[in-house]
């Protein structure tokens, strides 16, 4: 059977969902191929979206017209802004999700696009055609599936998650499969190896799920959500938010006894016995890893998080393990509140193939096969948000390629998504990559609150973002601009403001002071300044009263002006090097003065510009100088 779709997306996880919807919105026909139609947008691990830096990604995905934020808002059962005690740049939204509702909402969203066709099947191999000239060795033609389907296409986006040659480990038991109860996908990896790709092995893990009825929550600490929850999506109406009933989570701790019990299982640990060859994420270590590496720590946090609103399972956050089930349960029962706990789904580790990212361009298209895009865990990342961000970008670029347009690449100075992909391609991580705010150099500018101002123009131009959202952003931008102008050109007199200043322990003024300077004072809150002074009556400020988002932007921009300026300078310096393009077919081998390592790395990564070249691990400043001299001829 032969069929044709513009784009084939392989895998319907968080990357696959974003990729197919992006392509569909760009007017292309999409085949979304998944091994299990009931697993669309499944939360295989933590029933949560967002968190530090990850929350930024979700906001950016939303601003570009992606769906993760909307899905999270629809299905979130506890919303929390992390890092509230810090400055606004590192505030990060996070929510607990009802994982079943999330998956249903994702499926519903996908199905709402008439030009997306769902295909339940497994891809066996890629069909390619050898290229006679150009930078690619092959170009993609289509896929062949296990069930014998032959699907033609312009581009293939592979978002296969942990499923390629996946092996699950619990104790000494090994099972083939990418997720508990789900089989692995074995043909595709081998097929890609034949084409000349290289693969690596990574490992990730998940904690046990607990029976909610066997936990004594009264002995644990309550972890509530924010009183005034904020949605992820700029497009979710505030009036009807939150949509789902909100729930609590709970916190308890391991203790020395827990650690002793866990240690009894070490000799059966697939990690310590070397049966797991893949490299695991250091930031999300298994509990056995934590107690062996940090043996001086007497206890570790365990968050008890409901997986669904009405269901019976609790996600045991902080207890990721691949020890034998008996050990898992025995150890869990040493923990306060879990004395009688029953494990309903054991923890396990999963090893899977990934494609080290030196094989991929910043557009997420492979260097070997034109029209073949890779996104998500297959690129060595971990996390739903990281996957979704890549899926979105891969989808956009597959769409642009189909239209014969240049790829869409976000700079490090524009978005966390830019940082994510730039890190992936240039650093070629050897452990699962997770987004952190410390990965972003320019985070005072890349805030979650201004993701719309930064990125909606792109989402709109690409055809992913609705007119209404775009118009709302434009109006917001204009209002910010007008108010900022007003504040920096109008003054308040001592008579108008001194009483207010006094009340707020702020030094009084002796002559008229610009409003912007008053707002800049740490102890002054803009909302109160407006409320308590004649500003309230002014026309321009009227627009602010019902617009807390604009108020927030203005306050941030004014209060942190010095820092933001310093950061803007850093960005300007950064951009200088980004603008020096390196020709696509640059012959690094001709450059004798390059160090051998630099030559190898430059040849394999083929940076677009000098800035990117500078970020490649192993490329030294002297190599960059040599490169620049040579390019000048």
């Amino acid at each position, binding site marked *: 059977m032969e069929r044709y779709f513009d784009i084939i997306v392989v895998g319907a996880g968080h990357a696959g969902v974003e990729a197919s919807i992006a392509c569909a919105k760009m007017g292309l026909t999409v085949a979304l191929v998944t091994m299990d139609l009931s697993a669309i947008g499944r939360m295989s691990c933590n029933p949560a979206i967002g968190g530090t830096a990850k929350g930024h990604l979700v906001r950016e995905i939303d601003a570009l017209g992606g769906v993760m934020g909307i899905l999270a808002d629809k299905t979130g059962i506890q919303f929390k802004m992390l890092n509230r005690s810090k400055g606004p740049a*590192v505030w990060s939204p996070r929510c607990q999700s009802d994982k079943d509702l999330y998956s249903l909402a994702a499926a519903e969203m996908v199905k709402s696009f008439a030009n997306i066709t769902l295909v339940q099947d497994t891809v066996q191999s890629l069909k390619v055609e050898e290229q006679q000239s150009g930078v690619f060795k092959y170009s993609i033609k289509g896929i062949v599936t296990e069930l014998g389907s032959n699907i033609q296409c312009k581009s293939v986006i592979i978002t296969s998650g942990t499923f390629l040659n996946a092996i699950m480990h619990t104790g000494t038991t090994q099972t083939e499969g990418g997720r508990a109860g789900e089989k692995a996908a074995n043909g595709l990896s081998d097929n890609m190896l034949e084409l000349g790709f290289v693969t690596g092995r990574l490992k990730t893990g998940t904690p046990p799920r607990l029976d909610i009825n066997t936990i004594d929550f009264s002995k644990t600490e309550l972890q509530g959500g924010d009183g005034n929850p904020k949605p992820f999506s700029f497009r979710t109406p505030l009036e009807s938010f939150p949509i789902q009933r909100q729930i609590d989570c709970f916190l308890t701790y391991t203790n020395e006894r827990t650690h002793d019990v866990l240690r009894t299982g070490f000799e059966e640990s697939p990690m310590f016995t070397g049966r797991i060859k893949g490299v695991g994420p250091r930031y999300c270590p298994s509990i056995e890893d934590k107690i062996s590496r940090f043996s001086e720590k007497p206890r570790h946090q365990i968050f008890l998080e409901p997986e669904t609103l009405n269901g019976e399972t609790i996600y045991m956050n902080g207890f990721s393990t691949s020890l034998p089930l008996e050990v898992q349960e025995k150890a869990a029962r040493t923990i306060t509140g879990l004395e009688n706990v029953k494990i309903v789904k054991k923890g396990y580790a999963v090893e899977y193939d990934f494609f080290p990212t030196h094989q991929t361009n910043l557009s997420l298209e492979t260097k070997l096969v034109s029209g073949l895009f890779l996104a998500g865990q297959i690129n060595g990342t971990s996390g739903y948000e990281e996957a979704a961000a890549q899926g979105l970008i891969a989808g956009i670029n597959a769409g642009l390629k189909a239209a014969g347009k240049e790829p869409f690449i976000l700079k490090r100075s524009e978005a966390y998504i830019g940082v994510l992909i730039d890190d992936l391609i240039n650093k070629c991580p050897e452990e699962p990559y997770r987004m952190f705010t410390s990965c972003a150099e320019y985070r*005072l500018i890349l805030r979650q609150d201004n993701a719309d101002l930064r990125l909606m123009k792109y989402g709109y131009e690409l055809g992913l973002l609705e007119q209404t959202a775009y118009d709302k952003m434009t109006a917001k931008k204009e209002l910010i601009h007008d108010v900022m102008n007003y504040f920096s050109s109008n003054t308040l007199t001592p008579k108008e403001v001194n009483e207010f200043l006094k009340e707020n322990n702020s030094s009084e003024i002796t002559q008229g002071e610009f409003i912007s300077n008053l707002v800049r004072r740490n102890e002054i809150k803009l909302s109160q300044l407006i409320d308590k002074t004649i500003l309230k009556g002014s026309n321009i400020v009227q627009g602010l009263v019902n617009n807390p988002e604009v108020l927030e932007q203005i306050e941030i921009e004014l209060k942190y002006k010095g820092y933001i300026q310093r950061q803007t300078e850093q960005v300007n310096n950064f951009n200088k090097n980004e603008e020096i393009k390196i020709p696509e077919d640059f012959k690094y081998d001709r450059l004798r003065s390059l160090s051998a390592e630099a030559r190898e790395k430059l040849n394999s990564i083929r940076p677009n510009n000098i800035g990117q070249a500078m970020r490649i691990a192993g490329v030294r400043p002297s190599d960059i100088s040599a490169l620049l001299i040579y390019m000048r001829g």
Partner: protein
Amino acid sequence: MNVNNYDTIAAISTPIGEGGISVIRVSGDKAFEKISSIFFKDKSGKNNFDIGSLKSHTIHFGYVFNRGEIIDEAVLSIFKSPHSYTGEDVLEISSHGGVLVTQKVLAAILSLEIRHAEPGEFTKRAFLNSKIDLSQAEAVADLIKSKTDSAHQSSIKQLEGSLSDFVKKTRQDLINLTSLVELELDFAEEDLEFVKKDELKEKILSLIKRIEGIIATYISGKVIREGVNLVIAGQPNSGKSSLFNYLLKTNRAIVSNVEGTTRDYIQENLIINGVLFNLIDTAGLRFSEDEIESEGIKRSYEKITEADLILYLIDASDKEEKINESLAYYNHHIEKEKSILVYTKIDKAEIEKQNEPAISLLKDDSIESLKKLMTEKVTGKGISSGSSDIILTNLRHKVCLENVVASLENSVKTIEDGMTGEFISVDFRNAMKYLGEITGEVTNDEILNNIFANFCIGK
């Protein structure tokens, strides 16, 4: 083309050591005029070249003279502005190789109010005159660095080695501090102990102090590149000019037995054991009714305060009373850190001075050991006898370190203002960037690696 008006500079452009030829490069608008006065067509020393009238990109055979004596036969290459490496008028004298000859030619050039070039200065000018861009300049500098191998260069390299160790260590300290700050931001939910803001501030302040200590050594580092300002001081008739002349092996300074003969200071350049000394002979230190001489003495005092190294001479053959008087002056007025007390005329002296270097112009080996002491004093721990063995030898490094300090000071202010980690880290990042400019970039990975290595995190 050459819109920038810089002084004329010269330096040996080939590595110092035994070789077929050595090339000395001179660049600047006075190059042709000045060198014309020492480059002659024949051995008579009468027919000098008028280099300015010669065509660009031509070579000429001739003789280099210094004060009437032939130093070497040499080939002169002429590059007229703007068609030269630096964009300025450039000439290159290819002399016979060998340390002594080459340095003699250089000394002859440096006696013409031509300044000794700093390392990389030709390239810097090429950059400033838009002949090359900054990165090209840096690449050339790297090339030069990797090729030179003179005693002088290697001593600098050694000093730079300790600098890069210092930078490495400081960078690691900064990474540690940044990690502490980042940890708090990225792992908000983890139950981790974070550094207290006061402690953080203390740590930054001690870091600033350490870096400032290094910046303070810069003067002496500069000295090594631009030359050591050496002042020969002492009471009248203590043998200053004799030593001065002896060191130069010339008769440039007027020497006489009448007190106060040297009425002004005289400057000469000399390379001793690979270190360039700018010798300054001063008028004797005493009060004088003679107006002209008083002016000379006043200048002597100025020179003494500007000096990097002072040779303070005491005539060992003098009466004990006068020796003590001079010693008292030395003890009161001369900085011990940057001076050497030298007893002179020991061949005529009755008492032996054993604790201090003692010389006689009649004993060559006594001068040799003084020379050794002089170079040790400037390249070793002598002048910058602060807490570290680092001497900052490069202006760019100094500026980088100053920027590091400024950034750290910003971060201290941020802490004092009660701001949180993401603001503190803006300036940490700047500080690391500036440190990175000395040795290589710091990557974000390093910070994360550090976090993972030292803290238990992850739910």
